[in-house]
C-alpha cells in the first residue's frame, strides 16, 4: 500500500507487467494464492489484508460433518518450520455454505474450497453440495492430509485410490477441480498422472511433510498426535523438487506449495514450471505476506524487463 506509492516512479517509467495467470478453467489476477488451513475462511484476515488483491484463497479443509479436531498441543515450532496436527477441525460444509461463503462473496476474490472425506462417497457428497455455490470458484481436493487416519492419507499415497476419489469428485461437480497431492510418497509421478487421468484440472504440490519433535526434558512428543505435518521454509527445497518432477510428468497446470516466504521463493517454483503458488505458514509470520509477494513479483518483473509472468514459467536453464 505505502509501497505502491513508493514504486510509482518506476511504474511511470515502464509499463506495468502482467501478473494474470490461467490455471485450466480458472483465471487469476495474479499467481499468489493463500493456502488451505493457514488462512481460515478468509474472513479472519479481512481486517489485515485486502482480499481483493490476492490471486485467490483456499479455505480450511471442509468435510461433510463438522469436525472437532485434535487435542492440544497442535503446534510445534522447529528450525525454520512448523509442525501441526490440527486434525482437520472445520465447521462442516453446510455451515460453510450458510455462514462463511455469503460473507466471503462481498469480496472480489477467487475462493477455492479445500475438501476431504473419509470415503470416496463422502468426497463426492461434499463436492456435490458445493457445486455451483455462489461466490465459489473451484474445489481443491485434499487427498494428502497426514494428520488424521481418515483424513485421506490412504487415498493420496496410492494411484488407484487417488484415481477413484478424483473421478468421483469430477462426476459430482462442474467446477474446476484441483487435486492437492501428498509429499509423503516414494514417487509422486504415478499419483499425479492418476489424478490427471481421472479429470483433475490442476494439481497443488504439495501438502505438509510428516515429521515429529520431542521435548527432551519430559521425553514427550511435542504434538498430541506424536507425528504431524511439517510446513514452512524448512520444506521448500523438498517441495520444489516434487513440483519440478510433477511438472515434467503431467500436462495440466501445477500450483507450487511449500515454504514460500518471499518473491524469490515464489520465482523458484515458477521457473521450475509452476503456474501459480500458494503461501501457507508465511501468513503467520506476516499477515501481509501474500500481498508483499505480489508486489515483489511485480518489482522483479519490472527490474528484469519481463512483460508477463508466464514468460518465466518453466524456464529452468540446463546448467
Amino acid at each position, binding site marked *: 500500500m*505505502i509501497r505502491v506509492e*513508493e514504486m510509482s516512479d518506476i511504474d511511470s517509467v515502464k509499463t506495468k507487467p502482467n501478473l494474470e495467470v490461467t490455471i485450466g478453467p480458472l483465471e487469476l489476477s495474479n499467481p499468489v494464492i493463500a493456502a488451505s*488451513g493457514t488462512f481460515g475462511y478468509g474472513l479472519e484476515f479481512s481486517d489485515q489484508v485486502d482480499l481483493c488483491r490476492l490471486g485467490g484463497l483456499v479455505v480450511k479443509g471442509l468435510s461433510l460433518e463438522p469436525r472437532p479436531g485434535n487435542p*492440544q498441543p*497442535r503446534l510445534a*515450532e522447529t528450525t525454520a518450520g512448523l509442525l501441526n496436527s490440527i486434525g482437520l477441525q472445520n465447521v462442516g460444509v453446510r455451515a460453510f455454505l450458510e455462514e462463511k461463503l455469503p460473507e466471503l462473496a462481498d469480496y472480489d476474490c477467487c475462493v477455492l474450497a479445500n475438501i476431504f472425506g473419509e470415503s470416496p462417497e463422502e468426497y463426492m457428497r461434499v463436492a456435490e453440495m458445493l457445486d455451483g455455490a455462489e461466490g465459489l470458484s473451484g474445489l481443491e481436493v485434499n487427498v494428502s492430509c497426514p494428520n488424521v487416519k481418515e483424513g485421506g492419507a490412504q487415498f493420496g499415497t496410492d494411484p488407484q485410490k487417488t484415481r477413484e476419489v478424483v473421478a468421483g469428485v469430477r462426476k459430482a461437480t462442474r467446477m474446476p477441480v484441483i487435486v492437492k497431492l501428498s509429499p509423503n510418497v516414494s514417487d509422486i509421478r504415478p499419483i499425479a498422472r492418476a489424478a490427471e487421468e481421472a479429470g483433475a484440472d490442476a494439481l497443488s504440490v504439495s501438502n505438509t511433510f510428516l515429521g515429529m519433535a520431542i521435548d527432551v526434558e519430559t521425553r514427550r512428543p511435542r504434538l498430541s498426535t506424536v507425528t504431524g505435518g511439517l510446513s514452512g521454509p524448512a520444506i521448500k527445497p523438498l517441495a520444489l523438487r516434487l513440483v519440478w518432477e510433477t511438472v515434467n510428468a503431467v500436462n495440466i497446470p501445477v500450483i507450487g506449495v511449500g515454504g514460500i516466504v518471499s518473491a524469490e521463493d515464489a520465482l523458484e517454483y515458477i521457473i521450475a514450471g509452476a503456474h501459480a503458488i500458494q503461501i501457507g505458514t508465511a501468513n503467520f509470520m506476516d499477515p501481509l505476506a501474500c500481498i508483499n509477494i505480489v508486489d515483489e513479483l511485480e518489482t522483479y518483473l519490472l527490474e528484469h524487463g519481463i512483460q508477463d509472468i508466464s514468460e518465466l514459467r518453466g524456464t529452468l536453464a540446463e546448467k
Partner: protein
Amino acid sequence: MQGEIYNILRIVKRILPEMKATVVYNKVLSQGYFRMRLQCPEVSSEARPGTFLTLRVSELREPLLRRPFTIYTYDADSGWLDIVYKVVGVGTWLMSEVGEGEKLDILGPLGNGFTIPGNESKILLAAGGTGVAALYSLAQSILAQRHGVEITLLTGGAGSQDIICVDDFEEMGVQVLVATEDGSMGEMGLLTDLLGDQLEGSLETDDVELFSAGPKEMLKKVARLAEAYSIPCTVSLEGRMGCGIGACLGCVIRVFPDPLDAVIPPMTVYRRICRDGPVFDAAEIDWDSI
C-alpha cells in the same frame, strides 16, 4: 546491477510498512523480566484490558512465528503501550536485546479482552508469574469506573525475582499479597494456597468476583477453588499460537458444548484462545482436558 537494485528495493519495501512500533524503552524489572514501552498510536488507541499483541521478533526466519504478549498498560492519548515479559527462550531473549529507538513489527490489539465487572464490592485478582501482565490494566479500568471498590492482588512465583509489577498495583491502592515457593517473599507456598486462605477467610463471598491469569495448570486450580466457593471467575489463557488471529486453529482450548445446540452424542468443542479469548468464563472451560 539490475539484481542489486531489485534487492535493495525489496528490502526497503519489506521493512518500511511492517516496522510499526518504536521502542521507547526496554528495561529490566527483575532478573529475566523486562518491561518494554512501544510507541504505536494505531494499536494503543484500540487497546482494552486483556487484549494482546503479537510481535515479530526477528526479520529473519528464526524464530519463525510471531510471539504473543498481553498489553500490560497503554495510553491512547500519548500513543504508547507497555508489555511485560520474561525471557524463556530464543524469541524473548532476542527481545531483551532490543534497544531504545529500534522498530518492531507488531500486530494488535488482538483478542476479546475483559468485560469490566458490575457491582461486586470486592475484586480478587490472582496472577501467576507474567500472568500479572493481564490484570493491571483491568484493575486500572475498574478503579477508573468505580472509585472505592476494594481490589486485592494475589501474586505468586518461584522466588522473589518472579514477583513483578507489585509497586504499580500498590500505587493505585490495590492491596497486594505475595506467595513464593521458596519463601523469599511474602508467604511461603503456592499462589493457589494463598487464594484458598483468602476465600476461606472471607465469610461473605457473595459479592466477590475473581479474575486470574497465569499458566494453565495454575488456572485450573484457581477455577476449581472458585467453583468450590461458588464465586464467579474469569480467566485469561495462554497457549501456543500460530497465527494469533483465529485462522489456524492451533491455539484452541476445549470447552463444554453450548447446551442450546447440544448434539447427541455430545461433540467435543474447541474454541480459539486468540480470537474467542484469551478471556473466558472459567465455568466454560473443560479443565479436565488440561
